[in-house]
């Protein structure tokens, strides 16, 4: 008995020796990190991901302030542009989002306070990241049984487009890393099938069914970090809509009916809808669609067939946003020698088989609706640098918090004219 008591007290002593520093450490860093939950508690609280604790300041740390309030001490934010570890992050101590992707440095280095393990997902505080979660329907509407789950090939197609973006990062690289969860495994295990009764999403983005599915399938701790995509067969329209999305937001629908096996159709539409979330419109910064000099998947002209890569205004199957490099077109004063890229890449705008230095043509559409969106029948179209102007803050939407100012709301009170809205065909040299 005496021996047993002695053993117990020794065990208690050992526990205290190890537990007290851990407790002190947790308390101190909970204060520093506004309620950060240590990993062991995260497990007890059923937080889905284990997050690394913030490192304690070493004796050499001379500046224990956190100027930018990103949970990284100034002495750890070494501002070198090189990430080494959580004590040498290379980030800017005076910017809480060094890479400008809308996610704070501390979250990208340590994981979030709500237990979302962003470092394990591959995020970097020195390179822009975009995260998406996909939930999908399976159905047999309109064609044989099929799944709307995106495939790896579809995802990779648009991931590559972002990776090749002409966007500079603090670590000296270019491009944007897109991180996707379509239930492929590992930490990406939240994208899943939604068992919908008929394969049709009632309402659209912001509709009650969308919000109910999001509440049921999208983890709350992903809000503010992930864009959320539902892929139904269609939403409550019979018109063949390919999707819809919030402008500056985090929610979108991709509804490609029976085109689910088309790698380009699905990838291009995801990139198109994501573009709306990133504040891109059908004309870049305007709602003017089909501009031939706006070489972007955001334009209906290039959404499915891909952008033009050789200045002939004919789609070439490449997925991209515009870099804004095309020349401005004045429909009342078009020099066909200049095409859309400048001479010698000519375009025969009026289709008369002669390249002329002065013609007047409605080059984007003969549709009254489009004309109303574009400011008139004969007007001036500018390219737009999508990549330089994407807005990352839509993830902070939280379904109704973000303030926004829509651009001009165009009233279509006139009856449209006698033509449909697709782009005219051009002859080109």
């Amino acid at each position, binding site marked *: 008995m005496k021996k047993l008591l002695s053993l117990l007290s020794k065990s208690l002593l050992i526990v205290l020796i190890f537990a007290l520093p851990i407790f002190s450490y947790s308390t101190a860093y909970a204060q520093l990190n506004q309620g950060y939950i240590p990993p062991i508690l995260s497990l007890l609280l059923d937080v889905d991901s284990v997050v690394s604790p913030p490192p304690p300041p070493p004796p050499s740390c001379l500046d224990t302030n956190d100027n930018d309030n990103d949970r990284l001490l100034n002495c750890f934010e070494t501002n070198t542009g090189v990430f080494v570890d959580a004590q040498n992050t290379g980030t800017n101590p005076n910017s809480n989002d060094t890479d400008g992707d809308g996610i704070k440095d501390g979250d990208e280095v340590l994981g979030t306070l709500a237990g979302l393990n962003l470092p394990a997902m591959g995020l970097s505080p020195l390179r822009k990241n975009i995260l998406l979660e996909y939930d999908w329907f399976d159905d047999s509407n309109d064609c044989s049984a099929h799944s709307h789950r995106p495939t790896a090939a579809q995802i990779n197609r648009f991931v590559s487009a972002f990776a090749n973006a002409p966007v500079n990062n603090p670590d000296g690289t270019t491009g944007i890393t897109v991180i996707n969860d379509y239930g492929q495994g590992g930490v990406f295990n939240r994208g899943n099938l939604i068992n919908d009764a008929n394969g049709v999403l009632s*309402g*659209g*983005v*912001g*509709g009650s069914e969308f919000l109910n599915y999001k509440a049921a399938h999208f983890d709350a701790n992903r809000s503010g970090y992930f864009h959320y995509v539902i892929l139904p067969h269609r939403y*409550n*329209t019979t*018109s*063949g*809509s*390919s*999707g*819809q*999305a*919030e*402008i*500056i*937001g985090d929610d979108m629908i991709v509804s*490609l*009916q029976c*085109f689910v096996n*088309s790698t380009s*159709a699905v990838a291009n*539409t995801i990139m*198109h*809808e994501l573009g*709306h979330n990133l504040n891109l*419109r*059908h004309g870049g910064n305007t*709602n003017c*669609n089909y501009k031939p000099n706006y070489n972007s998947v955001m334009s*209906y002209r290039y*959404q*499915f*067939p891909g952008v033009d890569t050789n200045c002939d205004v004919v789609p070439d199957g490449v997925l991209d946003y515009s870099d804004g490099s095309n020349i401005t077109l004045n429909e009342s004063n078009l020099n066909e020698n200049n095409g859309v890229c400048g001479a010698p890449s000519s375009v025969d705008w009026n289709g008369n088989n002669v390249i002329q230095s002065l013609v007047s043509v409605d080059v984007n559409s003969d*549709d*009254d*609706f489009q004309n109303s969106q574009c400011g008139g029948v004969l007007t001036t179209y500018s390219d737009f640098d999508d990549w330089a102007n994407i807005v990352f803050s839509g993830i902070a*939407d939280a379904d*109704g*918090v*973000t*303030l*926004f*100012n*829509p651009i001009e*709301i165009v*009233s*279509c*009170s006139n*009856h*449209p*004219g*006698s*033509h*449909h*809205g*697709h782009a005219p065909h051009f002859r080109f040299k």
Partner: protein
Amino acid sequence: MIRGFFVISFYLIGSICSVAYSGASIDSQEKAECEKNKGRWVTPPSQILNREVDIGFCVFTTDDAGKVCESSQQCSSGVCTSATVVKRGEKVVGECFEWSNPIGHCLVTVENGIVTGEICFD
């Protein structure tokens, strides 16, 4: 005999052409009818996949266009919108979108009298 051959050939060629023609003209006829009735012919992006730019549907001005609304269910277009520049979460008097289908538009959406955001319909 020769005359009969020509008659049959003419009939056969005519049949083939008429099948091909009628197949291609269904939407063209609908489109013409649509435009005759002051509708607007819309080719949704997904149909461009088929390279059939004449495939589409007719949108028309709704009877409740411009009617005051608070939510999308109150409008035959399915969209209660606002023409004023507003902010998400603000109260606003909405009006029913005037076209029967919003594809191709980016619209401010109003639900329960509150601006819920701006949505692009593709």
